[in-house]
């Protein structure tokens, strides 16, 4: 049964999952790194992204690849209202921030129930083509998912590494007061980081809605995955998130193919507990000073 074709098919599925997990985890770790908020509502921004995509793509009939970024920007913009009203008061205060964001998470989830009901819906496939590359089948849908993730990751990297606002985010993450003493408006920097983070979550949510299904409760899965990726890869880095995401996505794909989905969940959480016990800084992370 371990033919090359099967193995590559499983790997491809795994990479698709990985791409989404990395997208979710990067935003999650960005907010933690820059403002020290463990954002429990991160998954709900993914959920909102799914519904926003459904609105722009299904209801308004925009092209999928136009609707997706618009949905992400819309969710990012909406999240700035919450940033202003709730999050801003909790920056650099991990415990209260965690509880506040848990509140936001539940409020958004049930807000979603009130607006859209509890039944699962789906976003009709935007791309139906199937390509065969040698022995493997590649659906256009998966190509789009991987492509969107790669482009976003590349953009994220370039912004963080080579732009003024990217450097501002990095130094604010390192030492807020000293960053402000360089003339950097740290509040504006926070707002930007928050926007990027929730917009990336929304992007991932749109892709999840397209691949799987849409429901007000769909935010839990991405949140849990973000936690696992961050524990695997260590908090804060792009490289860590990429490695953590790949390990998780590929691992899940292989284990669930051969042993079923519940075995995959069992093993990924078992792995997490083992890592927390024996290598708390993550697979590639360094110990925090």
């Amino acid at each position, binding site marked *: 049964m371990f033919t090359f074709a099967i193995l590559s098919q499983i790997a491809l599925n795994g990479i698709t999952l990985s791409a989404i997990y990395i997208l979710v985890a990067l935003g999650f770790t960005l907010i933690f790194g820059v403002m020290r908020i463990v954002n429990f509502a991160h998954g709900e921004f993914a959920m909102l992204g799914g519904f926003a995509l459904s609105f722009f793509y299904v209801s308004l009939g925009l092209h999928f690849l136009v609707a997706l970024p618009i949905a992400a920007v819309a969710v990012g913009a909406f999240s700035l209202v919450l940033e202003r009203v709730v999050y801003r008061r909790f920056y650099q205060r991990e415990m209260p921030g965690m509880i506040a964001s848990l509140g936001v998470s539940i409020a958004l989830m049930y807000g979603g129930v009130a607006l859209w009901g509890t039944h699962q819906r789906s976003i009709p496939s935007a791309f139906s083509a199937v390509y065969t590359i040698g022995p493997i089948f590649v659906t256009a849908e998966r190509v789009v998912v991987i492509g969107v993730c790669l482009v976003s990751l590349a953009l994220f990297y370039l912004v963080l590494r080579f732009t003024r606002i990217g450097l501002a985010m990095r*130094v604010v993450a390192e030492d807020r007061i000293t960053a402000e003493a*360089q003339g950097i408006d740290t509040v504006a920097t926070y707002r930007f980081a928050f926007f990027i983070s929730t917009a990336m979550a929304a992007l991932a949510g749109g892709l999840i809605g397209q691949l799987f299904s849409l429901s007000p409760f769909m935010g839990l899965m991405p949140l849990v995955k973000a936690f696992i990726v961050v524990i695997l890869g260590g908090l804060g880095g792009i490289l860590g998130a990429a490695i953590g995401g790949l390990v998780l996505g590929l691992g899940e794909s292989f284990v669930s193919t051969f042993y079923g989905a519940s075995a995959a969940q069992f093993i990924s959480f078992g792995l997490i507990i083992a890592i927390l016990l024996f290598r708390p800084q993550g697979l590639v992370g360094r110990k925090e000073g």
Partner: protein
Amino acid sequence: MLDFNGVSISYGAVRAVSELSFAIEPGETVALIGANGAGKSSILKAIMGIAPIRHGSIVFENGKLDGLRTFQVVRRGIGYSPEGRRVFAATSVIENLHAGGHILPRPQVPARLAQVLDYFPRLRERAHQASGSLSGGEQQMLAIGRALMSRPRLLLLDEPTLGLAPVMVQHIGEVIRTVQAAEGFAVLVAEQNAVWALKLAGRGIVLEVGHKKFQGRSQELAQDPVVRAAYLGTD
């Protein structure tokens, strides 16, 4: 150019500085000297809007600074090299300097960067190294260079000689003098190393637990028997 008018600084119930007044003229260097806890850092932090002031006001070039946020103070023309250097350890030397130039219009950044690297050639050799891997003296140069990036008209230096070897202490003093002669900014330097600070500065203010104990021209202070005994470690 800077007027410190009856300023009190408190942290909760702890009063660090009480109703202190002094002024700085354009281009001059003033030293704040005093023992641990005298309130030197608090004064610089109050100017930067990092420590809150309770009474009084701080005026810079006819505009009030108190009430401004720290980044706005920088935009008014003040550069700050904090105590303990606080370089961004995970970012490179060049990126630290870029952060210091955050308020410059983008097209001016490369020229200013080249200029600051000319002032500190050691930093040019280390340009792409992570700042955390620099020696203490190099980190101090970086902290000062970073503060210079924004072309300040007033430069605040908090303990620039702390923990440095004598050669380095002397070198830092020379660089500050050279750059100041070229650019004409004023300097307010907080130091425990009173001998060094009074050599650098034209005037000195001696602080004792938040109060002004003495002030005067540096030579006079350096010769005053009471000051010498208490702060210069000589008699």
